[in-house]
């Protein structure tokens, strides 16, 4: 796949269709693959990487990149195309300046899950018939492939590219995922249990803002959390209230626009399942205001920018579920 992508990029650079390429390159370790912009065939040849650790969604980078001069080639996985569509809908990217090549999606690997098995010093991985062969500085190790995949890939919602100029590989399908299972499980707990669960998770927050910075829906130039006069500006949470407030507001600001790409949980250094907050909003929107998948198209109205005269009242929250 990597070879095919490099060749495609070189060809598009050579015939002048694009001026730059956004892809990924290796970081310090084999598993920290990071987004990067390439301008020449040599750079691509030398540094371009696409492997089982390449999970980063590059859509958000296009907010800035698409406003620069010239066209940029972006390789987008199915989940990334939803984010891109949503950004197009909100006029955050210049569609004409981006040439999208759709590439097959995951499942991608989570290095933390490999490390949790006691495997360290990872140099590279190979997937052979769903057995993961891990090359480490201490020799070769193996583990089942599906035990090492990212949580967001385990509940993949769609393998379909919703926007592209060209595809490498086949067109996928929207999947029937079980992504709301965990939300449902929490909903069926008592309020005290839910409170304890979230206190346990959110109290780990160090307010690094990685979840906000990586989120393709979170693209305000001035963020409410950057305003020193707001009293909620960026600083380590000093009280449990701040942890709760930051995460409620972060999730609320993307409610109805979150495409459920799962990047927030993937980048969280404290492994807080932040996507559950976003999914709770998605689940509520689906059940109260009709099925809605953000990023699926570029024309429909977002649920929170819309209303119906016979919408349910807020008291619906008091009437359902366990207390």
């Amino acid at each position, binding site marked *: 796949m990597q070879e095919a992508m490099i060749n495609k990029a070189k060809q598009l650079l050579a015939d002048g269709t694009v001026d730059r390429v956004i892809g990924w390159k290796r970081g310090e370790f084999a598993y920290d693959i990071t987004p990067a912009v390439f301008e020449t065939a040599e750079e691509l040849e030398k540094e371009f990487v696409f492997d089982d650790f390449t999970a980063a969604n590059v859509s958000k980078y296009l907010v800035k990149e698409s406003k620069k001069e010239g066209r940029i080639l972006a390789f987008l996985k199915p989940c990334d195309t939803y984010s891109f569509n949503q950004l197009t809908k909100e006029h955050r990217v210049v569609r004409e300046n981006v040439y999208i090549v759709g590439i097959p999606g995951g499942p991608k690997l989570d290095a933390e899950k490999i490390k949790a098995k006691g495997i360290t010093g990872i140099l590279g991985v190979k997937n052979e018939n769903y057995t993961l062969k891990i090359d480490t500085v201490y020799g070769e190790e193996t583990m089942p492939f599906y035990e090492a995949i990212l949580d967001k890939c385990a509940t993949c919602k769609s393998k379909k590219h919703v926007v592209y100029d060209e595809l490498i590989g086949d067109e996928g399908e929207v999947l029937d995922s079980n992504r709301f299972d965990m939300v449902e499980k*929490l*909903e069926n707990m008592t*309020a*005290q*249990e*839910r*409170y*304890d*669960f*979230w*206190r346990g998770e959110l109290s780990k927050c160090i307010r690094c803002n990685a979840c906000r910075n990586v989120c393709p829906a979170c693209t305000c130039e001035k963020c*409410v959390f950057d305003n020193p006069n707001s009293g*909620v500006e960026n600083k380590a949470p*000093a*009280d449990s*209230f*701040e942890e*709760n*407030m930051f995460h*409620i*507001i972060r*999730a*609320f600001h993307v*409610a109805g626009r979150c495409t459920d790409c799962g990047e927030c949980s993937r980048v969280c250094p404290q492994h807080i399942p932040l996507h559950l*907050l976003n999914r*709770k*909003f998605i689940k*509520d*929107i689906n059940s*109260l*205001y009709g099925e809605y998948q953000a990023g699926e198209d570029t024309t429909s109205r977002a*649920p*929170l*920018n*819309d*209303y*119906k*005269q016979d*919408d*349910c*009242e*807020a*008291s*619906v*929250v*008091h009437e359902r*579920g366990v*207390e």
Partner: protein
Amino acid sequence: MQVNDNKDFQPLIVAFCCNWCSYAGADLSGTNRLNYPTNVKIIRVPCSCRVNPMFILRAFQRGADGVILCGCHPGDCHYTSGNYFTRRRMTLLFSMLDFLGIERDRTRVEWVSAAEGAKFAATMNEFTEAVKKLGPNRRLEDLRCRKQ
């Protein structure tokens, strides 16, 4: 549900009232000599839709035990559609607070028109009683803002 046994507990209730209906409704209940608890502190907003989720969280942070949002009845908004948006937003916000384990009876949305002074007083009496039963807000308070 936890029930508060402290009989002396006096909750602090913050009521966001829209300028055109509910604030006038509160005024009417006053001129009609109707009683509603002094626990209720009214904050006037131009439209119920002015209320940002952060306002509600901040009220809890600063010591409120219950927050109620009052606006014009759906269809009667001075700005045509503001309260329809409020309705969706608050439904989602309250649902999220419930999801995080915050007691669901601490928040409420009620539509009160300028002619419903009696409804305003009754709502506030009832809501204050409900919050009194819940006891002080502990799950969404900021210890730094606690009164000594």
